[in-house]
């Protein structure tokens, strides 16, 4: 875990704690609106579609599509230097919401828009597991 020492860690807030606890359990949690059924990310106290305040946690399939991506060549801080080059991507989950993550265990230059990826979890500390994505083996190309 020392590989992640000094990185910027998320500080769970009351409304996001279940999400981060889900990550510890290997689950990517989204919120589903009781009223309109829309699913959303990041966690909020209201539905972004209909403004209802009643939401349930549901597990995402963890599958998504790369909407955009970049290869970071110059690290944001020393703690990230060992990971260079790393792929930052925006991933549209099958359920609808988009999230930022890294695509790991791949040849950075092989990433492209429309690529299918699926979630995995990387333990950074005893308390924090980060949702990351890997390239799906069933990509056509």
């Amino acid at each position, binding site marked *: 875990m020392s590989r992640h020492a000094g990185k910027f860690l998320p*500080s769970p807030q009351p409304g996001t704690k279940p999400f981060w606890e889900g990550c510890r359990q290997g689950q990517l949690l989204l919120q589903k609106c009781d009223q309109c059924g829309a699913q959303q990310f990041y966690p909020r106290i209201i539905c972004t579609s209909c403004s209802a305040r009643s939401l349930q946690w549901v597990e995402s399939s963890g599958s998504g599509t790369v909407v955009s991506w970049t*290869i970071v060549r*110059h690290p944001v801080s020393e703690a990230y230097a060992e990971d260079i080059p790393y792929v930052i991507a925006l991933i549209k989950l099958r359920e609808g919401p988009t999230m930022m993550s890294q695509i790991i265990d791949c040849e950075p230059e092989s990433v492209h828009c429309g690529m299918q990826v699926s979630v995995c979890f990387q333990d950074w500390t005893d308390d924090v597991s*980060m949702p990351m994505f890997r390239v799906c083996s069933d990509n056509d190309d």
Partner: protein
Amino acid sequence: MHNLRGKTAIVGAADTAVGKVPDLSPTELCVDAALRALADAGIDKDEIDGLVTCQSMAEPHMYHAETVAEYLQIFPRYCVTANAGGGTTFSTIRNAAAAISAGICETVLISMADSLRSGLTRAQAMAMQSSTGHPQFEIPYGPTVPAYYALIARAHMDRFGTTPEQLAAVAVNGRNYASQRAGAQMSEIITVEDVLQSRMIADPLHLLDCSLVSDGGAAVVLTSAGKAKEHRGNPVYVLGMGEGHSHEHISQAKDLSTSAAVQSGREAFEMAGLTPAEIDLAQIYDCFTPVVLIELEDLGFCDKGEGGAFVESGATALGGQLPMNTNGGLLSYCHPGNPGSMFALTECVYQLRGESEQRQVKAARTALAHGQGGIMSSHATLILGHEDTL
């Protein structure tokens, strides 16, 4: 909406020295910009009853504008610190124009400066800029500011076939003007090839696709049209203003290749009663090259997806259809962070007063300045005009 067209005018404008200015603190640079703008306006500081500044990253004050007022020994009725830069700068102009029109104050000094180059280490500047990401759902992944904008560039390339050469053309355009602007931080002419050969920072953005890290400041004096008429010199009138906000964090953007510049531009053109074809020159926020293409499209200067071809055609060069970023912009003239958009504003003023020397756009009567902040999130557009356009 209350029509603010022509109700206020800029009667003073000035830039400090820019680039590396280690001999003045950020607060002193802000005061220096203010004094220069007052001298340009030819008015006494006691005539100022409104003050707007922006927060400094290198020398923050909890009450920044109040601190600058105290330093200058002015005692305004309207005193505001802008917390951020980009579009926020032009939002403060709109707010000040509204305050003047509402009779809250009459003459507002807007002065902004910072020293990102001399006042912060490179690591501090990088950490400060990257903190714009979402603290839980973006920042831990280690995105840099160029990486955020690279996501926008990639989306535009994927959707419209925009090329790295077209992005590079934006940087080349800015540098050509900067070579004609005395005091610009970077003035050596570059080619598309130079941009493509420069170090890759975050694919597809090369070093020369990224704006500068600078020291510097600029200020303007904004007053009522009534008072401007009594003023000697050439007042520059505020004809149109608009604002639009679509998201804050890039992972929440509903569309990566179209921005809220659509809304801010539409509002500003409507107020001004002008169309894009009637704009003589523009300063288009250029923190990274792809931003310029999207803004040109969204403001209506070219069709959606055609921004790259538009710049590549030479339309933005001096003598072209829309001379753009005529001081060199954030890419080549100066980018001290929050104050960055102020130089776009002062450049519009110099152009409309006919003072831009070798880079002067002939018979310039209308100018547009567009700023954006966050990550392509908050957009604000200003349209300015010579007295003839009233």
